[in-house]
C-alpha cells in the first residue's frame, strides 16, 4: 500500500501517455498509458500479440509511435533511435541474444559501447560490475564456450555498464534453470534497491507475482488492468490477460496402449557445428499411450537429439534409433514419416513451414501421404480441404488456406503446424518447444491436443524449456544436460527442484546413484 504514497512523493522515471502504433492491418498499441517509478520493478503482462514488444521497441527507440507522448524524468522526449535511448539511460536485454560467438565477452561488450573503451580497462569495469551484481563473468572467455544463462549475464552486464536508469527485460527467464532464475531475481532486486527501474516483460504469472511491485496488463493492444501482482492470484492475473479463466488440460489416467514405440539406444553423435553439443550415450524409450518429457536449458544437445530422432541428421548406427520396431538410424525424415512419425520442430518459419508459401502448400509439405496426391500429381482440392480441416479443428486464426505462413502470428502458425502433424494420425509424435512464444489460450489448446493424442494411444515426446508445462502433461520426465540424458523419472514422484538440480548436470558422473534411485522407485525402463 506504499506504492501510491511513493508515487506522490517522487516523480515517475518514465511516463507514457496515449501511445498509439498502427500497422496497416492492426492497431498494435491503442492509447497506452504506463508509468514506472524510480526503483520500481514493473511487469508488462500480456499474451503474444498483445502489443508488449511493440511498446518496448517504442521505448527503446526502435519504433516511433504514431501518437502519444513519452516523458522521461518529467521531460517530454522523442526517442529516435536505440542510441538515443541509451544516451537517456535506457537499457534493454532482448529475448534473443546478439553476441558474436567467436569473440570474447570483453570484445562483445566493446562493440556495443561508444568507441574508445576496450582492453584491460574495460575488463576491469566488467569484473567490477559483474561482481557487484552477482553476475560472475570472465571477460576473457569466448562466448561460444558459455551456457545460455552465462550469455544472458553478458547482455545484462553490457547494459549495466552504461548505468541505466531503466532496464527493459524481455522474457528473461525462458532460458534459465529454476535456480538461475532465483539468482537473476536477486540481481534485479539489487538493481531496484539502487533506484534503477525495471520493466519486466513476461507471460509467466508466478514469476511476476514473486518479483514485481506493479503490473500493467495488455490485451489486444490496450491496457486492460493495472495492479499490484503480489496481491493478485494467478487466475486473477490470467483473467485480466486473456479475459477468461486459465485453461488446464483435462487429465485422465491413460489406459490405452498404442503400438507406436520409439527406442534410442546408446546414441552418440559428434556435433557438426563447432559450437554445437556432442550427444553422449543417450538412452530413451517411449511407448504408445504416454508422454515423455525432456527438460533442460536449451543448448544442451536438444537440437542435436531432435535432428537425430526426426531423421534430419541420420546417424551411423541404424539400431541407435528404433521406430515401431524398425531400426531407422540411417534413414532420413521421409522414411521415418512413412513409418508413422510426426514432428513439430522448434523453428516454425523456415523449418516447420515455408514462410512464403500458403497454408495449403504448407499442409502438403508433410501431409502429402494423406492421399493429397495421385500418381505424383497434387490434388489441389484435397490439399485445400486438409488445410481447411486443420484450420477449423485447431482454431487457427487465418484468412483461409491461401494465407501465407508468414502472415500468421506465431501462436496461430504453431497451432497450424501441430494440427497438421496430428491430423496425419501419427503413431509417434515428437514436439519441440510446442508452446514457445505462444499465447496462453493457444498454449493450453496445444497441450490439450498432446494429452488427447496420448489418450488415443500415441507415443508422445515433448522437449521443452517450460518446466511447468512438462510437469503438467508428462507421464515421465528426463533432463538433458551437456549432451547427456538423465534416466527418466515418473512425473508424480518428482518436482521442480529435483529437475532443476538435474538440469545443472548433477546426474553426470553419478549414473550409478541415479540408477539406484530409479530401481528403488520401482521403475523399470520400458522396452
Amino acid at each position, binding site marked *: 500500500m506504499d506504492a501510491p504514497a511513493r508515487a506522490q512523493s517522487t516523480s515517475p522515471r518514465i511516463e507514457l501517455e496515449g501511445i498509439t502504433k498502427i500497422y496497416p492491418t492492426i492497431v498494435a498499441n491503442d492509447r497506452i498509458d504506463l508509468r514506472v517509478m524510480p526503483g520500481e520493478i514493473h511487469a508488462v503482462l500480456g499474451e503474444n500479440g498483445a502489443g508488449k514488444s511493440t511498446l518496448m*521497441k517504442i521505448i527503446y*527507440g*526502435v519504433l516511433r509511435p504514431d501518437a502519444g507522448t513519452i516523458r522521461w524524468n518529467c521531460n517530454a522526449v522523442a526517442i*529516435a*533511435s*536505440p*542510441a538515443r535511448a*541509451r544516451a537517456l539511460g535506457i537499457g*534493454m536485454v*532482448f529475448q*534473443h*541474444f*546478439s553476441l558474436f560467438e567467436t569473440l570474447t565477452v570483453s570484445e562483445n561488450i566493446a*562493440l*556495443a559501447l561508444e568507441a574508445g573503451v576496450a582492453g584491460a580497462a574495460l575488463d576491469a569495469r566488467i569484473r567490477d560490475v559483474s561482481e557487484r551484481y552477482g553476475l560472475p563473468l570472465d571477460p576473457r572467455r569466448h562466448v561460444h564456450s558459455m551456457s545460455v544463462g552465462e550469455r544472458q549475464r553478458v547482455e545484462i552486464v553490457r547494459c549495466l555498464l552504461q548505468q541505466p536508469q531503466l532496464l527493459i527485460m524481455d522474457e528473461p527467464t525462458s532460458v534459465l534453470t529454476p535456480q538461475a532464475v532465483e539468482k537473476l531475481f536477486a540481481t534485479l532486486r539489487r538493481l531496484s534497491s539502487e533506484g534503477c527501474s525495471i520493466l519486466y516483460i513476461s507471460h509467466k504469472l508466478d514469476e511476476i507475482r514473486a518479483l514485481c511491485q506493479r503490473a500493467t496488463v495488455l490485451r489486444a493492444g490496450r491496457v486492460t488492468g493495472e495492479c499490484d501482482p503480489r496481491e493478485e492470484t494467478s487466475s486473477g492475473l490470467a483473467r485480466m490477460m486473456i479475459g477468461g479463466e486459465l485453461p488446464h488440460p483435462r487429465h485422465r489416467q491413460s489406459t490405452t496402449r498404442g503400438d507406436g514405440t520409439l527406442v534410442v539406444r546408446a546414441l552418440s553423435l559428434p556435433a557438426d557445428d563447432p559450437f554445437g553439443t556432442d550427444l553422449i550415450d543417450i538412452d530413451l524409450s517411449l511407448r504408445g499411450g504416454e508422454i515423455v518429457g525432456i527438460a533442460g536449458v536449451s543448448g544442451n544437445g536438444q537440437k542435436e537429439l531432435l535432428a537425430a530422432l*526426426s*531423421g*534430419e541428421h541420420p546417424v551411423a548406427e541404424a539400431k541407435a534409433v528404433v521406430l515401431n520396431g524398425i531400426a531407422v538410424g540411417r534413414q*532420413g*525424415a*521421409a*522414411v*521415418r*514419416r512413412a513409418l508413422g512419425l510426426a*514432428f513439430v*520442430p522448434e*523453428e516454425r518459419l*523456415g*523449418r*516447420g*513451414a*515455408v*514462410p*512464403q*508459401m500458403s497454408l495449403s*502448400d504448407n499442409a*502438403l*509439405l*508433410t501431409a*502429402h501421404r494423406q492421399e493429397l*496426391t495421385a500418381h*505424383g*500429381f*497434387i490434388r*489441389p482440392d484435397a490439399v485445400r480441404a486438409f488445410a481447411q480441416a486443420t484450420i477449423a479443428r485447431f482454431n487457427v486464426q487465418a484468412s483461409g488456406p491461401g494465407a501465407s505462413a508468414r502472415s500468421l502470428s506465431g501462436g496461430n502458425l504453431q497451432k497450424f503446424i501441430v494440427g497438421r502433424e496430428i491430423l496425419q494420425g501419427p503413431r509417434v509424435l515428437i514436439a519441440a518447444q510446442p508452446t514457445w512464444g505462444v499465447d496462453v489460450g493457444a498454449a493450453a489448446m496445444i497441450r490439450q491436443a498432446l494429452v488427447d493424442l496420448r489418450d488415443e494411444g500415441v507415443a508422445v515426446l515433448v522437449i521443452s524449456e517450460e518446466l511447468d508445462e512438462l510437469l503438467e502433461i508428462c507421464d515421465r520426465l528426463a533432463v538433458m544436460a551437456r549432451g547427456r540424458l538423465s534416466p527418466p523419472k515418473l512425473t508424480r514422484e518428482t518436482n521442480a527442484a529435483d529437475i532443476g538440480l538435474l538440469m545443472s548436470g548433477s546426474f553426470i558422473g553419478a549414473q550409478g546413484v541415479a540408477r539406484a534411485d530409479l530401481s528403488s522407485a520401482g521403475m523399470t525402463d520400458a522396452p
Partner: protein
Amino acid sequence: MRLRLEARPEPSRLMAWLSPLFAVAATLVVGFVLFAGLGKNPLEAFDVFFIKPVENLYGVGELLLKASPLMLCAIGLAAGYRANVWNIGAEGQLTLGALCGGGVALALQDGGGAWVLPLMLVAGAAGGMAWAAIPAWLKTRFNANEILVSLMLVYVATLLLSLLVHGPWRDPEGFNFPQSRMFADVALLPNLLPETRLNLGFLLALAVVAVAWLFMRRSLVSFQMRVAGLAPDAANYAGISARRTVWLGMLIGGATAGIAGVNEAAGPIGQLLPAMSPGYGFAAIIVAFVGRLHPFGILLASLLMSLLYLGGEAAQINLALPSAVTGLFQGTLLFFLLAADVLINFRLRVARPAAIGAVRAAAGEGI
C-alpha cells in the same frame, strides 16, 4: 550522404511481374542513347532493329525458329533455378546434345526411317543430361559449386565437339573445312511453313514448355524442389532430399538443353559445326529470369530475346554496327532486370548521420 538499402516488409507481387517490362523500357532508352551516340538516327535504328526483322512471314519464321532453343534451354534452367540449383552450363549441355544427336545421324548415314529423329532426340537429351550429371555428382559428392563446374564444362564441351569435327567426323568431301557431312533427310526436322525455315522443332519446344507447365504447377516433385529452394531447413524437415533436388534440377536443365542442341543440328544447321549455337544457352539464363521462371513468361521472353538476335544481325548488315550489339542489349536487359528486382525487395534510403548511429546500434543489439 550515404545511400543504403532497406528491406521492404512485403515485396509487391505486381511489381515482380512488371519489373521485366521496366527493364525492357530502360533497355530501349539505353539503346536510344547508344544509337544516337554512334551517329545513327535512333528511330531509324529502332526500325531496323525491332520492326524490319519481323515485317514479313520469313522474318516471323526466323523469330520463332530462334526462340525455340531459347525457350527449351530456359524452361529446363528455370526448373533448377526454382530449386536454387544454379546450372549456368546450358550452352555446354546444348553442345553435347547436338553432338550425341548428330552422332546418331552421322552413324546411320543414309539408312533408317521415321525412328531416326526420335532416336536423335533421345540421344541428345541423354547427352545433355550426362553433361549436367557431372556438376550434379560433384555437387552432391564433394559440395563443388555447380555454377563454376557447369560453366567450365561449357568450354570442355565446345572443344570436344571441335575435336570431332576437325578429326574423325570431318566431311571427307568438305574441302577440309571443319564440319561434318550434311545429315540425311530422315535425320532433318520437317519444315512447318513454306517460304520460311521454321520446322517441327518449334512445336516440340512448345510441347516441352506445356509439359513443364504441368510439371511445375501440379507435380509433387516440383513442389518439393521449390521448397528445397525457398527453405532448405523446411525441406530437410519434411524429408525432401537435397541431393535429389540437385540431381533433378541439373538433369532437367541438361535434358531440355540437349533437345535444343538436336533441334539446331537437325534443323537450321543440318550438320555438325565447331560451334552449334550463338550463345543460346547463356541467353537462356536471361530468358529464364525475364520470364520470372514461369513457363508462360519464358515463352514471351524467348520471343523478345530472339528478336534481339535478329535485330543484331540486321543492325550489322544495315547499320554497319558490330555484332557485339546483340550481347550488349542482352547484358543491358539483364542489368536492368536485376536492378529492378533489387528495388522490389529493398528501398533506397539516404542515410543521415543519426540513422547511421541507429544502424550501428542495430548491429550491436540485433534489432
